[in-house]
Every structure is written in structure tokens, then in C-alpha cells.
């Protein structure tokens, strides 16, 4: 094993700072004592970070709940699904987005769009709930053109 020592060639410029910190001049802000933490959107949408995942939407079956294609979903696996919750389910090894609905002892995964059909749990159709969706994130500017189309129709009467 060889040992070599590397030294850097150059000019000596070891400087010792005169002041370790900058000098405070003038008056301290009168609001300094009232400073609070910043608003944390993560904390607002995440109850239990270790159980929170994210997902992206493909399709339009939940438009009635304000969820559009390409929206980001917050998926919380620590929540137990209540009737009416939006959930990420698994059917035939695929992730699907629906609302969980329980009535008269029957369980459904419901779309929120009249062009789609409910899915009922029975012997032939099994589903599993992967997580509950407590929040979704919609990029409003991406919906601008759709909105403008609607405005035009309104103005045209």
C-alpha cells in the first residue's frame, strides 16, 4: 500500500474574520416577537405522513366530485373508509378510483358521473380498498380552456 500526501499549490491567503457575525444596526422589527411558523399545506392535507401516498388520476368517472384527469390525489392508508369516502380500490390487479358506498348490507364502488356504472361487491366481483382519498389537487390553470369554452356558450346565450 502506497501513501501519498497531496498539498495544494498557491498563495497563502489564510484570513481571519474580524467579526464572526454581521453587526446589527438600527432598530429591531417591532413584529419580531409575533413571528409564527409558516402555513404548511403538507401538514394540512397529511394526517399521518408514514401512511400517506400520492396518486395521479386517469379518467373522468369522478368529475362530479371535482376530480379531473391528471389531478393529484392524497391517499391516506391510515383512514378506515366511511360510506361516501373517495377511495383508491383494486380490482383485477388495477388501481381504480371510486367512492365507497355501503347500504342495506351491500357494498359498492360508485362513480360520480352518470355515464359510468356502479360496481357491486359480490361473488364474481371482488374489490379491495387500498386507501382513502381525503384531498385532491386540481391545477386550475390547466382547466382554463374548458372554462373559457363554457363562458363563450354563456355569452352566446
Amino acid at each position, binding site marked *: *500500500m*502506497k*501513501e*501519498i*500526501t*497531496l*498539498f*495544494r*499549490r*498557491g*498563495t*497563502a*491567503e*489564510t*484570513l*481571519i*474574520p474580524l467579526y464572526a457575525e454581521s453587526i446589527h444596526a438600527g432598530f429591531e422589527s417591532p413584529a419580531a416577537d409575533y413571528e409564527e411558523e409558516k402555513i404548511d399545506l403538507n401538514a394540512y392535507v397529511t394526517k*399521518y*405522513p*408514514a*401512511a400517506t*401516498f*400520492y*396518486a*395521479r*388520476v*386517469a*379518467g*373522468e*368517472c*369522478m368529475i362530479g366530485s371535482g*376530480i379531473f*384527469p391528471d389531478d*393529484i*390525489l392524497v391517499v391516506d*392508508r*391510515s383512514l378506515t373508509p366511511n360510506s361516501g369516502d373517495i377511495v*383508491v380500490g*383494486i380490482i383485477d*390487479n*388495477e*388501481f*381504480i*378510483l*371510486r367512492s365507497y358506498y355501503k347500504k342495506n348490507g351491500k357494498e359498492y364502488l360508485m*362513480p360520480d358521473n352518470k355515464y*359510468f356504472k356502479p360496481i357491486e361487491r359480490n361473488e364474481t366481483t371482488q374489490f379491495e380498498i*387500498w386507501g382513502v382519498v381525503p384531498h385532491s389537487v386540481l391545477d386550475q390553470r390547466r382547466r382554463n380552456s374548458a372554462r373559457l369554452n363554457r363562458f363563450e356558450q354563456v355569452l352566446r346565450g
Partner: protein
Amino acid sequence: MMALIDSNNFYVSAERVFQPELRDKAGCVLSNNDGCAISRSNEAKEALGIRMGTPFFMMRQKHESGQLWWRSSNYTLYQDMMRRITQIVRDTFPDQEIYSIDECFCDLSTFKHHDLEQVAIDLRRKILQYTGVPVCIGIGSTKTLAKIANKVAKKLHKDTGVFYMGNQQQIDRALKMTEVDDVWGIGPRYGIKLIKAGVRSAFDFTQLPEDYVLKLMTIQGRRTYRELKGERCIPMEYERPLKEGISNARSFNTTVTELAPLEEALATYVANAARKLREQKCVCAKFMVYAQTSQFVIESDRYTKDIVVKLSTATSDTGTLITASLKALRRIYIKGYRYQKVGVELRDLKPETQVQKDMFSLVSTSKFNKLQQAMAAVDHINKNHGRNTIIHGAMGFEKKWAMRQEFLSRKFTTRMEDVIVVKAI
């Protein structure tokens, strides 16, 4: 009491959480460079006989015929899932030691008046629900017994995933079904010795006279012996001791003969090691660089060389370390060999607060601080925008030598563009 919480087939389980199509099917996760199996599903173990280390080419036919799925190792994903599991465990059992990527020990001394078995069953169910990863929990009076209890849980208590080794009868039964070389701390070398001496099970081992164990296996063996008898000898390690050295190296996917790609690879490994160094808030003033050919070629084609470099001032600056390591590499590089690996090992790590400046040092304090600030900014950007957002030019851009990861899944939990897609159709 002590608990050992261990994820079942962790890498395979983590892949399955985000790829439901992989569930209930034989599959495995491959090692770096997709060389061999390092995590296997139960189906792959039982039905296909895939072992730890079964090489890629031996599994190829099963993969092509659709019997077996595989994935390259996605350490970013596994690390994130591990972080989640340890957090959930800590909420129940706060005295926790992270032992490896898929195991942690917990000291349950503060839980005297609880039904520990039920607490563990609830915790296991919670981890499965919150993360999708199945774990087993073994509880015993020492770390070594907790390890054994965990194995029993995996074998015999698949429904609850928990085995609480409460009384001597249960301990003896568990020790009798544990082969002596499977005991934590004994290992294959002493295992062979013991089996030759007629000691087959962990129970047999505990029946030996203590002096005999001490003579045969030194003080380490006696520690394991006493732990099996219920005496705590291995304490919890809450704070990981400072790593003595950090090394970073991987084999190339093909051999490399030219200096330039070797330099790129080394610079990349140095950058990784330097990042780890800064994460630990450490600096180093000494490191070793090495280059080697394959050991499986004829002797005249074999070459292994290392070189130790001392810096005049300890640093964690990537640029400084890369420059010095490349100089060292050029010293040991000999044209003509087909290199399979280069690597770096940072040594003599010290906390960055203890930087001792060489009186001849030419790096001024202000420059040192500036370098530190610059590296902190780079680390911050790379953490938030992906590991290689800002790189040193020396690390190269093509990386023809880079790790083979042909079957890598997405970074489902750490990158917004990689999250699962949910069908709303």
C-alpha cells in the same frame, strides 16, 4: 422484553404495494447489476426453489415462460418504505434500534403492565394497513431470543405474524426447532464446528458447559450463549456510532480499459461517498482509492492496486475529494488491463466541528465556509429535485459503465412524476 420486527421478503413486498399485478405470483428482486436474486416471494422460494443468490441466467427461462417476475433493486423505494415502517413502530415502541433496512429491535421494558402479545398483534396489523408491507414480530427476553422468536413467528404464526416467547417451555420448544448455525451471532464458521461436535439445535448449544463454549468460541460465543439463557448481554444501540469509514464502489456491467470512463465512475462514487459524509456531518482527511480487474481471469490479466491519500486539511467537499482521488487513480492505472471495479473508501471520519486546520493550509476559513455553503446548496437541490440534478463534470454524462438496472420500477413514493396511476374509467 425485547422485540424484533422484521419485514417479510421486504424488497418483494415493497414492490407489490404499488404493483398489485405482482401479488400472489412468484417473483424476486435482483442485486445490483441485476446479478442474482436477493429477495424472493414465498411462491418463488417454495414452488420454484429460487434461493438467495440464484444467478440471473439460471432464472431466465422461468422468467421468459412467465412463471417468475423480477425487478432491479429500487433502493430509493425501499428506503422510503423502511422510514415509514420505523416511524409507525416508534409510535408504539419508542425505544427503537434500527438494525438493518428491514429489521429493528425494540426494548419493551417500559411495557410491564401491558398484554405485549396483543400490543404486537395490533402493531403488526397497523403496519400492514398503513404501508402494505407484512412484518413479523418476535418477542423474547434478549435480542438473540427475540431473533429466534421472530423466525418462529414466520414459520408457525403466519396468521398473527407474532410470537411471544413468554415461558421457559416456549423458549425450549423454539430453541429445539432452531438449527445451531441459524442462531444470531453463531454463523456458519462456528456452526460447522458445533455440528461436528454433535451440537445440532440451539437447545443443544444451551446445554453445553459455559467453559467449553468460551474455549471453543471465545467471549463472543459466550455472549450468545448467555443471551440464549435469557441474560441480556447485547445492549440496544440507539445512536448509530459514527461510521468508521464510508465506501462506495460497484462492479461495472462490462470491463473498462480506458482511463476516462474509470475516472467518471470513480468521481461518481466519490460524490456519493462525500454526500454520505456530509449527511453524517463529518469530514475526512484520508481515503483509499482502488482499481481491480476480475479475479476470474488468467493470472497475467489480473491486477489489483490500492493507494491511500492524505489531505492536508480534512474536508467533505466533493470537488476537493474528486480532484485528489483522480490524481491517485492516475497513479495506479496501468493501460492494458480490463478493469472491473474502481472504488473509494473514506477513512478516519471526524465530526465537522472538529476540523483541525493545518498551519500551512492554503484554504482560508472564508473559502472553507464558502465551499461548505455551496455543498449544502447542492445537497438541498439534489434532495428535492433528484439525486443527479447538479453533478460535477468529472462524473460524466453518458455513464456507459453504470449499474445495470433494466427492470427498475418507478420511485412511487418520492417523485411526483412516478406516483401510482389510478383509473377513473
